[in-house]
Protein backbone atom coordinates (compact mmCIF):
# COMPACT_ATOMS: atom_id res chain seq x y z
CA UNK A 1 0.00 0.00 0.00
CA UNK A 2 1.83 3.08 -1.21
CA UNK A 3 1.44 6.49 0.39
CA UNK A 4 -0.61 8.93 -1.62
CA UNK A 5 0.95 12.18 -2.75
CA UNK A 6 -1.24 13.98 -0.28
CA UNK A 7 -0.10 11.85 2.66
CA UNK A 8 3.54 12.21 1.69
CA UNK A 9 3.10 15.97 1.44
CA UNK A 10 1.70 16.06 4.98
CA UNK A 11 4.64 14.05 6.35
CA UNK A 12 7.33 16.00 4.51
CA UNK A 13 5.72 19.33 5.48
CA UNK A 14 5.62 18.21 9.09
CA UNK A 15 9.29 17.21 9.38
CA UNK A 16 10.30 20.30 7.46
CA UNK A 17 8.42 22.58 9.83
CA UNK A 18 9.47 20.79 12.98
CA UNK A 19 13.04 19.74 12.25
CA UNK A 20 13.94 21.65 9.07
CA UNK A 21 14.61 18.30 7.46
CA UNK A 22 14.10 18.11 3.73
CA UNK A 23 12.40 14.99 2.37
CA UNK A 24 12.30 15.11 -1.39
CA UNK A 25 9.71 13.17 -3.36
CA UNK A 26 11.17 9.79 -4.21
CA UNK A 27 11.68 9.21 -0.47
CA UNK A 28 8.21 7.70 -0.12
CA UNK A 29 9.74 4.27 0.45
CA UNK A 30 11.82 5.65 3.34
CA UNK A 31 8.76 7.21 4.94
CA UNK A 32 6.82 3.96 4.64
CA UNK A 33 9.61 1.80 6.04
CA UNK A 34 10.08 4.12 9.01
CA UNK A 35 6.39 4.56 9.75
CA UNK A 36 5.35 0.93 9.43
CA UNK A 37 6.64 -0.07 12.89
CA UNK A 38 4.84 2.96 14.39
CA UNK A 39 1.61 2.04 12.65
CA UNK A 40 1.91 -1.51 13.98
CA UNK A 41 2.63 -0.30 17.50
CA UNK A 42 -0.44 1.96 17.50
CA UNK A 43 -2.61 -0.80 16.12
CA UNK A 44 -3.56 0.97 12.90
CA UNK A 45 -3.98 -1.27 9.88
CA UNK A 46 -1.82 0.70 7.49
CA UNK A 47 0.69 3.51 7.24
CA UNK A 48 -1.98 5.56 5.46
CA UNK A 49 -4.38 5.23 8.35
CA UNK A 50 -1.59 6.13 10.77
CA UNK A 51 -0.77 9.27 8.79
CA UNK A 52 -4.45 10.20 8.76
CA UNK A 53 -4.62 9.90 12.56
CA UNK A 54 -1.38 11.87 12.96
CA UNK A 55 -3.04 14.83 11.28
CA UNK A 56 -5.36 15.04 14.27
CA UNK A 57 -3.23 13.65 17.11
CA UNK A 58 -0.18 15.66 18.18
CA UNK A 59 1.60 12.73 19.89
CA UNK A 60 1.53 10.70 16.70
CA UNK A 61 2.87 13.65 14.71
CA UNK A 62 5.77 13.89 17.19
CA UNK A 63 6.44 10.20 16.68
CA UNK A 64 6.66 10.77 12.94
CA UNK A 65 9.27 13.52 13.41
CA UNK A 66 11.26 11.23 15.72
CA UNK A 67 11.07 8.32 13.30
CA UNK A 68 12.18 10.31 10.29
CA UNK A 69 15.24 11.93 11.79
CA UNK A 70 18.18 9.71 11.08
CA UNK A 71 19.86 8.77 14.34
CA UNK A 72 22.74 6.79 12.90
CA UNK A 73 25.82 7.32 15.05
CA UNK A 74 28.80 5.48 16.53
CA UNK A 75 31.59 5.86 19.05
CA UNK A 76 34.48 8.15 18.01
CA UNK A 77 32.72 8.44 14.67
CA UNK A 78 35.23 8.81 11.79
CA UNK A 79 38.09 8.84 14.35
CA UNK A 80 40.02 11.82 12.98
CA UNK A 81 37.97 14.65 14.52
CA UNK A 82 38.34 12.93 17.88
CA UNK A 83 42.09 12.44 17.43
CA UNK A 84 42.35 16.12 16.52
CA UNK A 85 40.30 16.99 19.58
CA UNK A 86 42.73 15.17 21.90
CA UNK A 87 45.98 16.03 20.09
CA UNK A 88 45.36 19.63 18.96
CA UNK A 89 42.31 21.18 20.55
CA UNK A 90 42.68 20.15 24.18
CA UNK A 91 46.36 21.24 24.37
CA UNK A 92 45.59 24.47 22.46
CA UNK A 93 42.86 25.42 24.89
CA UNK A 94 44.91 24.40 27.91
CA UNK A 95 47.57 26.82 26.74
CA UNK A 96 45.13 29.65 26.04
CA UNK A 97 43.00 29.29 29.12
CA UNK A 98 45.36 27.93 31.72
CA UNK A 99 45.20 24.60 33.52
CA UNK A 100 42.27 25.42 35.82
CA UNK A 101 39.81 26.49 33.16
CA UNK A 102 36.75 24.32 32.83
CA UNK A 103 36.30 23.42 29.15
CA UNK A 104 32.78 23.94 27.81
CA UNK A 105 31.81 21.59 25.02
CA UNK A 106 28.59 21.29 23.07
CA UNK A 107 27.52 18.14 21.27
CA UNK A 108 24.82 19.80 19.21
CA UNK A 109 22.97 16.85 17.63
CA UNK A 110 24.00 14.11 19.98
CA UNK A 111 21.58 11.37 18.88
CA UNK A 112 21.74 8.49 21.40
CA UNK A 113 24.79 9.95 23.15
CA UNK A 114 27.79 8.20 21.64
CA UNK A 115 29.35 11.53 20.65
CA UNK A 116 29.25 13.28 24.06
CA UNK A 117 30.30 10.10 25.89
CA UNK A 118 33.19 9.60 23.44
CA UNK A 119 34.35 13.15 24.21
CA UNK A 120 33.99 12.54 27.94
CA UNK A 121 36.09 9.36 27.75
CA UNK A 122 38.84 11.18 25.84
CA UNK A 123 38.78 14.04 28.35
CA UNK A 124 38.91 11.68 31.31
CA UNK A 125 42.13 10.27 29.89
CA UNK A 126 43.63 13.72 29.30
CA UNK A 127 45.05 16.44 31.54
CA UNK A 128 41.51 17.83 31.68
CA UNK A 129 40.06 14.89 33.60
CA UNK A 130 37.13 16.22 35.62
CA UNK A 131 37.69 19.79 34.37
CA UNK A 132 35.09 20.05 31.65
CA UNK A 133 31.38 20.22 31.09
CA UNK A 134 29.54 18.85 28.10
CA UNK A 135 26.11 20.00 26.99
CA UNK A 136 24.50 17.37 24.78
CA UNK A 137 21.41 18.34 22.81
CA UNK A 138 19.12 16.87 20.17
CA UNK A 139 15.70 17.61 18.76
CA UNK A 140 14.39 14.14 19.49
CA UNK A 141 12.93 13.52 22.92
CA UNK A 142 13.46 9.81 22.50
CA UNK A 143 17.16 10.29 21.68
CA UNK A 144 17.71 12.65 24.61
CA UNK A 145 16.15 10.10 26.92
CA UNK A 146 18.29 7.32 25.54
CA UNK A 147 21.43 9.45 25.76
CA UNK A 148 20.65 10.38 29.35
CA UNK A 149 20.08 6.75 30.31
CA UNK A 150 23.47 5.82 28.84
CA UNK A 151 22.47 2.21 28.20
CA UNK A 152 23.66 0.61 25.02
CA UNK A 153 22.95 -2.66 23.32
CA UNK A 154 25.66 -5.10 22.38
CA UNK A 155 25.32 -3.97 18.76
CA UNK A 156 25.88 -0.37 19.76
CA UNK A 157 28.98 -0.99 21.88
CA UNK A 158 30.44 -2.96 18.99
CA UNK A 159 30.35 0.16 16.80
CA UNK A 160 33.78 1.78 17.05
CA UNK A 161 34.24 1.72 20.82
CA UNK A 162 37.81 0.62 21.58
CA UNK A 163 37.58 -2.38 23.88
CA UNK A 164 39.87 -0.91 26.59
CA UNK A 165 37.30 1.91 26.91
CA UNK A 166 34.43 -0.56 27.07
CA UNK A 167 36.15 -2.34 29.92
CA UNK A 168 36.99 0.86 31.77
CA UNK A 169 33.77 2.85 31.44
CA UNK A 170 30.93 0.36 31.08
CA UNK A 171 29.18 -2.21 33.22
CA UNK A 172 27.04 -4.99 31.96
CA UNK A 173 23.40 -4.79 32.96
CA UNK A 174 21.38 -7.71 31.61
CA UNK A 175 21.74 -7.74 27.83
CA UNK A 176 23.00 -4.13 27.79
CA UNK A 177 25.95 -2.00 28.84
CA UNK A 178 25.65 0.95 31.21
CA UNK A 179 27.94 3.99 30.99
CA UNK A 180 29.82 4.74 34.21
CA UNK A 181 28.54 7.49 36.49
CA UNK A 182 31.99 9.13 36.26
CA UNK A 183 31.24 10.02 32.64
CA UNK A 184 27.60 10.95 33.10
CA UNK A 185 28.16 13.46 35.86
CA UNK A 186 29.94 15.94 33.56
CA UNK A 187 27.31 15.86 30.83
CA UNK A 188 23.91 17.52 30.82
CA UNK A 189 21.25 16.63 28.29
CA UNK A 190 18.65 18.94 26.86
CA UNK A 191 16.18 19.04 23.99
CA UNK A 192 17.19 21.76 21.51
CA UNK A 193 15.97 22.40 17.98
CA UNK A 194 18.93 23.83 16.05
CA UNK A 195 16.63 25.21 13.38
CA UNK A 196 14.86 27.51 15.83
CA UNK A 197 16.18 30.29 18.09
CA UNK A 198 18.58 28.73 20.59
CA UNK A 199 18.14 28.86 24.36
CA UNK A 200 20.41 31.09 26.44
CA UNK A 201 23.73 29.34 26.98
CA UNK A 202 27.19 30.47 28.08
CA UNK A 203 29.71 30.44 25.20
CA UNK A 204 31.45 27.21 24.22
CA UNK A 205 35.12 26.37 23.65
CA UNK A 206 34.33 23.47 21.35
CA UNK A 207 31.23 22.54 19.35
CA UNK A 208 30.61 19.19 17.69
CA UNK A 209 27.91 19.72 15.06
CA UNK A 210 28.33 16.55 13.12
CA UNK A 211 26.15 14.86 10.51
CA UNK A 212 23.10 17.03 10.95
CA UNK A 213 23.65 20.02 8.61
CA UNK A 214 23.40 17.56 5.70
CA UNK A 215 19.65 17.24 6.34
CA UNK A 216 19.01 21.00 6.07
CA UNK A 217 18.58 23.26 3.05
CA UNK A 218 21.09 26.03 2.40
CA UNK A 219 19.21 28.79 4.22
CA UNK A 220 18.73 26.66 7.31
CA UNK A 221 22.41 25.62 7.26
CA UNK A 222 23.39 29.27 7.12
CA UNK A 223 21.19 30.36 10.01
CA UNK A 224 22.18 27.35 12.13
CA UNK A 225 25.88 28.10 11.62
CA UNK A 226 25.36 31.76 12.43
CA UNK A 227 23.46 31.03 15.64
CA UNK A 228 26.10 28.54 16.71
CA UNK A 229 28.92 30.98 15.99
CA UNK A 230 27.27 33.51 18.29
CA UNK A 231 27.49 30.92 21.09
CA UNK A 232 31.19 30.16 20.54
CA UNK A 233 34.22 31.70 22.20
CA UNK A 234 36.09 33.78 19.58
CA UNK A 235 38.99 31.29 19.67
CA UNK A 236 36.75 28.22 19.86
CA UNK A 237 36.67 25.18 17.61
CA UNK A 238 33.84 23.73 15.53
CA UNK A 239 33.81 20.19 14.14
CA UNK A 240 31.45 19.18 11.34
CA UNK A 241 30.69 15.84 9.70
CA UNK A 242 32.93 14.56 6.90
CA UNK A 243 30.43 15.63 4.22
CA UNK A 244 29.78 19.06 5.73
CA UNK A 245 31.52 22.44 5.54
CA UNK A 246 30.98 26.13 6.32
CA UNK A 247 32.63 27.14 3.06
CA UNK A 248 30.26 28.96 0.77
CA UNK A 249 27.65 29.00 3.53
CA UNK A 250 28.94 31.11 6.40
CA UNK A 251 32.20 32.95 5.87
CA UNK A 252 32.34 33.96 9.51
CA UNK A 253 34.17 30.65 9.93
CA UNK A 254 37.58 29.73 8.62
CA UNK A 255 38.67 26.19 7.92
CA UNK A 256 41.84 25.01 9.66
CA UNK A 257 43.65 21.71 9.59
CA UNK A 258 43.90 19.90 12.90
CA UNK A 259 45.90 16.71 12.60
CA UNK A 260 44.24 14.79 9.78
CA UNK A 261 40.87 16.45 10.26
CA UNK A 262 39.34 19.75 9.25
CA UNK A 263 37.99 22.08 11.90
CA UNK A 264 36.41 25.52 11.71
CA UNK A 265 37.12 28.57 13.81
CA UNK A 266 35.49 32.00 14.01
CA UNK A 267 37.47 34.06 11.55
CA UNK A 268 39.12 36.68 13.74
CA UNK A 269 40.59 34.05 16.01
CA UNK A 270 42.72 32.31 13.44
CA UNK A 271 45.49 34.90 13.40
CA UNK A 272 47.62 32.97 15.88
CA UNK A 273 46.49 29.38 15.81
CA UNK A 274 48.32 27.04 18.13
CA UNK A 275 48.84 23.55 16.83
CA UNK A 276 46.90 24.24 13.66
CA UNK A 277 47.61 25.54 10.19
CA UNK A 278 45.29 27.30 7.82
CA UNK A 279 43.70 25.73 4.85
CA UNK A 280 41.02 26.90 2.44
Amino acid sequence: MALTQHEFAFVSGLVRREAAIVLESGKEYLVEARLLPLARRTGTVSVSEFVARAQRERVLADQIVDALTTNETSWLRDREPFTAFTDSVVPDLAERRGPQHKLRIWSAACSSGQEPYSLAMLLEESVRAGKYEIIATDISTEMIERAKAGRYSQLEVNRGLPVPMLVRYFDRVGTEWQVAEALRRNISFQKVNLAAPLPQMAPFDVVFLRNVLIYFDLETKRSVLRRIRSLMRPDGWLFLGAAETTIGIDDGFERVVAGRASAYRPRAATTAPVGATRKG
Partner: protein
Amino acid sequence: MSAPTTDDLHAITEQVWLSYLDPEGVNPFLPSPDAPPSPHVIAAVSVTGAWEGHVVMTFSERAAELSSAALLGMGDDEVTPDDIADAVGELVNVIGGNVKSLLPDGSLLSLPHVVTGESAGNTRWPAAVEVCRLQGSWQDEKIAISVWTSKSAGEGA
Protein backbone atom coordinates in the same frame (compact mmCIF):
# COMPACT_ATOMS: atom_id res chain seq x y z
CA MET B 1 21.68 -13.27 39.21
CA SER B 2 18.07 -13.50 38.06
CA ALA B 3 16.92 -15.96 35.42
CA PRO B 4 16.63 -14.80 31.79
CA THR B 5 13.20 -13.46 30.81
CA THR B 6 11.17 -13.29 27.62
CA ASP B 7 12.19 -9.61 27.36
CA ASP B 8 15.85 -10.62 27.42
CA LEU B 9 15.20 -13.16 24.67
CA HIS B 10 13.43 -10.51 22.66
CA ALA B 11 16.31 -8.03 23.01
CA ILE B 12 18.83 -10.67 21.99
CA THR B 13 16.73 -11.88 19.07
CA GLU B 14 16.25 -8.35 17.79
CA GLN B 15 20.01 -7.86 17.67
CA VAL B 16 20.66 -11.17 15.97
CA TRP B 17 18.04 -10.34 13.36
CA LEU B 18 19.48 -6.86 12.72
CA SER B 19 22.96 -8.33 12.39
CA TYR B 20 22.30 -11.31 10.19
CA LEU B 21 18.73 -11.67 8.94
CA ASP B 22 17.27 -8.17 8.63
CA PRO B 23 20.11 -5.66 8.24
CA GLU B 24 17.78 -2.92 7.00
CA GLY B 25 15.53 -3.26 10.00
CA VAL B 26 12.45 -3.52 7.82
CA ASN B 27 11.60 -7.15 8.39
CA PRO B 28 11.77 -7.81 12.11
CA PHE B 29 10.88 -10.94 14.03
CA LEU B 30 7.31 -10.36 15.25
CA PRO B 31 6.39 -11.92 18.59
CA SER B 32 2.90 -13.38 18.88
CA PRO B 33 1.05 -15.36 21.51
CA ASP B 34 -0.13 -18.20 19.23
CA ALA B 35 1.73 -21.39 19.92
CA PRO B 36 3.61 -22.61 16.84
CA PRO B 37 2.60 -25.93 15.31
CA SER B 38 4.91 -28.90 15.64
CA PRO B 39 8.32 -27.71 14.44
CA HIS B 40 10.29 -29.13 11.56
CA VAL B 41 13.78 -28.05 12.63
CA ILE B 42 15.15 -27.81 16.15
CA ALA B 43 18.49 -26.27 17.03
CA ALA B 44 19.79 -26.35 20.58
CA VAL B 45 22.82 -25.61 22.72
CA SER B 46 23.27 -26.84 26.25
CA VAL B 47 24.65 -24.88 29.17
CA THR B 48 26.61 -26.74 31.81
CA GLY B 49 28.58 -25.82 34.91
CA ALA B 50 27.34 -23.14 37.29
CA TRP B 51 23.93 -23.25 35.57
CA GLU B 52 22.48 -26.25 33.73
CA GLY B 53 19.97 -26.11 30.92
CA HIS B 54 19.29 -25.62 27.23
CA VAL B 55 18.61 -22.83 24.76
CA VAL B 56 16.33 -24.11 22.01
CA MET B 57 15.15 -22.65 18.70
CA THR B 58 12.38 -24.27 16.69
CA PHE B 59 11.51 -23.49 13.08
CA SER B 60 8.90 -24.40 10.53
CA GLU B 61 10.54 -25.94 7.47
CA ARG B 62 10.19 -22.71 5.49
CA ALA B 63 11.39 -20.55 8.41
CA ALA B 64 14.56 -22.65 8.60
CA GLU B 65 15.13 -22.29 4.86
CA LEU B 66 14.50 -18.55 4.85
CA SER B 67 16.69 -17.81 7.84
CA SER B 68 19.52 -19.99 6.55
CA ALA B 69 19.41 -18.34 3.14
CA ALA B 70 19.46 -14.88 4.73
CA LEU B 71 22.30 -15.76 7.10
CA LEU B 72 24.46 -17.31 4.40
CA GLY B 73 23.58 -14.76 1.74
CA MET B 74 22.16 -17.38 -0.64
CA GLY B 75 18.92 -17.72 -2.56
CA ASP B 76 16.29 -19.58 -0.52
CA ASP B 77 15.97 -22.26 -3.21
CA GLU B 78 19.73 -22.87 -3.11
CA VAL B 79 20.19 -23.93 0.50
CA THR B 80 21.03 -27.57 1.13
CA PRO B 81 20.17 -29.50 4.31
CA ASP B 82 23.82 -29.07 5.36
CA ASP B 83 23.56 -25.31 4.92
CA ILE B 84 20.44 -25.28 7.07
CA ALA B 85 22.11 -27.30 9.81
CA ASP B 86 25.14 -24.96 9.82
CA ALA B 87 23.07 -21.82 9.73
CA VAL B 88 20.44 -22.60 12.37
CA GLY B 89 23.21 -24.12 14.48
CA GLU B 90 25.07 -20.82 14.37
CA LEU B 91 21.91 -18.84 15.13
CA VAL B 92 21.23 -20.83 18.29
CA ASN B 93 24.92 -20.62 19.18
CA VAL B 94 24.91 -16.81 19.07
CA ILE B 95 21.58 -16.56 20.91
CA GLY B 96 22.71 -19.16 23.43
CA GLY B 97 26.01 -17.33 23.96
CA ASN B 98 24.14 -14.13 24.72
CA VAL B 99 21.77 -15.95 27.08
CA LYS B 100 24.82 -17.42 28.81
CA SER B 101 26.10 -13.94 29.57
CA LEU B 102 22.97 -13.46 31.74
CA LEU B 103 23.74 -16.62 33.72
CA PRO B 104 26.16 -17.08 36.63
CA ASP B 105 29.88 -16.96 35.77
CA GLY B 106 31.39 -20.33 35.13
CA SER B 107 28.66 -21.61 32.84
CA LEU B 108 29.81 -23.35 29.66
CA LEU B 109 28.14 -23.61 26.26
CA SER B 110 28.08 -26.85 24.28
CA LEU B 111 28.43 -27.13 20.51
CA PRO B 112 25.07 -26.70 18.74
CA HIS B 113 22.87 -29.68 18.01
CA VAL B 114 20.36 -29.70 15.13
CA VAL B 115 17.44 -32.12 14.53
CA THR B 116 15.41 -32.04 11.31
CA GLY B 117 12.20 -33.67 10.05
CA GLU B 118 9.80 -36.06 11.79
CA SER B 119 11.97 -36.57 14.85
CA ALA B 120 12.13 -32.81 15.51
CA GLY B 121 8.51 -32.78 16.64
CA ASN B 122 9.22 -35.53 19.14
CA THR B 123 12.27 -33.93 20.75
CA ARG B 124 11.88 -33.69 24.54
CA TRP B 125 13.93 -32.15 27.32
CA PRO B 126 13.55 -34.65 30.13
CA ALA B 127 14.08 -33.38 33.64
CA ALA B 128 14.07 -29.77 32.43
CA VAL B 129 11.55 -26.97 32.97
CA GLU B 130 10.95 -24.00 30.74
CA VAL B 131 12.31 -20.69 32.09
CA CYS B 132 11.09 -18.38 29.36
CA ARG B 133 9.88 -18.47 25.79
CA LEU B 134 9.64 -16.11 22.85
CA GLN B 135 7.48 -17.16 19.95
CA GLY B 136 6.35 -15.44 16.83
CA SER B 137 6.90 -15.25 13.15
CA TRP B 138 9.32 -14.01 10.61
CA GLN B 139 8.10 -13.47 7.06
CA ASP B 140 4.91 -15.23 8.19
CA GLU B 141 6.79 -18.38 9.22
CA LYS B 142 6.85 -19.64 12.80
CA ILE B 143 9.94 -19.51 15.00
CA ALA B 144 10.18 -20.03 18.76
CA ILE B 145 13.07 -19.59 21.17
CA SER B 146 13.03 -21.01 24.66
CA VAL B 147 15.31 -21.43 27.65
CA TRP B 148 15.12 -24.53 29.85
CA THR B 149 16.78 -25.37 33.11
CA SER B 150 17.47 -28.78 34.57
CA LYS B 151 15.35 -29.11 37.68
CA SER B 152 18.12 -30.26 39.95
CA ALA B 153 20.65 -27.55 39.16
CA GLY B 154 18.03 -24.85 38.61
CA GLU B 155 17.75 -23.96 42.28
CA GLY B 156 20.16 -21.38 43.56
CA ALA B 157 20.90 -20.15 40.03
